[in-house]
């Protein structure tokens, strides 16, 4: 069954508009748990309380405040917050284009598929092809569900994707930090590590990796539901005692043996 579109918009590149529909690219498979009251084994509810008195504060009495300094808030009314909402728009505005490798992984938040929305699908596929040929991605701004979004427009295979990107203040960059201190590895160790990593080098093939844990959790739940949960062993921390160059040499040796066996 085809997915339902979340939103409809138009990509604005120069004076050209490409009408698109937006779909989530993610389907969540996480095992969902409920929070239960330990005594009654019933689902719990949530509410807001005054931490001093412990009394519940009903929704209509709750105010929203921005903390200007510890313990000092400016209260913003519902009307004021509503006025801050951006005006409705269908435009996905492309501010600029950058080479594909220039946005670090850290910025990407959620991916969405864009699909052509009626009319001439050729514009849609032409834009995807152009982005691919130029190895570019567009920095996009749009308003969806009364919220501003900033993101990236990118072609993967033949299709267009729109990613939401994290806010400039959110991401901590390596530049903000300092490299770890302590002893540096020797040239010999570096050479061996290089050799080891190269032996483990391959292509990224995501289908090779399966969430086996999800299945294990579900199996365990089924067994426990029937009343015979297996006993589980404790997790023990691991320690490495041997010298780094010895461990590297052993690693390379064992990989070579594996390769020989496979050949």
């Amino acid at each position, binding site marked *: 069954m085809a*997915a339902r579109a979340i939103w409809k918009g138009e990509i604005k*590149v*120069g004076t050209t508009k490409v009408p698109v529909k937006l779909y989530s*690219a*993610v*389907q*969540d498979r996480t*095992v969902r748990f*409920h929070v239960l009251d*330990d*005594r009654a084994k*019933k*689902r*719990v*509810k*949530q*509410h*807001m309380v*005054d*931490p001093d008195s412990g009394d519940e504060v009903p929704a209509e009495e709750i*105010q929203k405040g*921005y903390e*200007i300094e510890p*313990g*000092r808030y*400016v*209260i913003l009314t519902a009307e004021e917050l509503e006025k801050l909402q951006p005006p409705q728009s269908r435009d996905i505005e492309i501010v*600029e*284009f950058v080479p594909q490798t220039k*946005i670090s992984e*850290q910025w990407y938040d959620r991916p969405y598929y864009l699909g052509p929305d009626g009319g001439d699908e050729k514009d849609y*596929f*032409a834009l995807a092809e*152009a982005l691919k040929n130029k190895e570019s991605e567009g920095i996009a701004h749009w308003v969806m569900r009364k919220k501003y979004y*900033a993101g990236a427009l*990118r072609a993967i295979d*033949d299709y267009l994707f729109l*990613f939401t990107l*994290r*806010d*400039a*203040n*959110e*991401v*901590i960059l*390596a*530049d903000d*930090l300092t490299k*770890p201190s302590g002893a540096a590895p020797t040239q010999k160790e570096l050479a061996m590590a290089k050799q*080891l990593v190269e032996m483990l080098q391959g*292509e*990224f093939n*995501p289908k090779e*990796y399966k969430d*086996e844990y999800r299945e294990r*959790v579900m199996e365990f739940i089924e067994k426990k*539901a029937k009343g015979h949960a297996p006993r*589980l062993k404790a997790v023990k921390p691991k320690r490495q005692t041997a010298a*780094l160059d010895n461990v590297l040499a052993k*690693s390379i040796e064992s990989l070579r043996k594996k390769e020989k066996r496979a050949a």
Partner: protein
Amino acid sequence: MPPRASRRRAEPEEEENAGGRPFWSGTLTFGLVSVPVSLFPAARTVRTSLRMLGPDGQPLARKYYAEKTGKDLDADEVVRGYEVTKEKFVIVTDEELERLAPEKTRDIDLKQFVPAESIPPIYFERGYFLTPAAGSQKAYKLLAETMDKSGLAGIATFVMRGKEYLVAIFSDKGILRAETMRFADELRSPADVGLPKKKEAPKATVTKFQKLIANKSKKQFSPAKLADKQTDSLLKLVKKKQSKRENVVKVEEEMETDRKVVDLVKILKQSLGGKK
């Protein structure tokens, strides 16, 4: 059932009260080399900057309560349950979740290295910085420098807080960064979504778009282009009200019991510097 409640434990982003403790501690391994590390989030949660206040401006706390008795429940009075049939739950403890996959809970075993720029961004979920545990600085640096020089990223799967993640480890200016990734079966294909088959586009249209792209191209990505306009206008309003002394409330510090302001950058620097 409030959806928030079930999501709380499953999604790390919901848990803001880490109090400066690492999100996960374990061992990063490649070959037989092991590097004990701690994981810290590489992003701050800044988007929800508004706080819920009571009628007198006092900050409120979100609490679980039992519906029948109306009694508030503390963290040690709630458990995690999976609904097997309607209203019938199987309780699963943190310990059980950990013990279900002991190796994966403890180790990030880098079995493969791939060109760092070859992973499509649809996979990336959330970033964490890795800091070396005491005594593992040399092995940490060895891995970081090796990956840096070869332009490779290490791939593994591991279990963090009751969920398995596909993860890519990057060397970022001498610091190791983990990006959790979605599994292939968590991503829809164009056919799943129901997108039409590719139509051959006229050469002229492609060329037209390529020209438009070239005209608006920049060499570098500038994060300033991602400034959140909504937050900006909110801050302007706050400043205006503040200068007019409109609706400003002050509460006693002691009231803020359920929240600690954590300076992530400071914690990361301390941890990278080998300080506890």
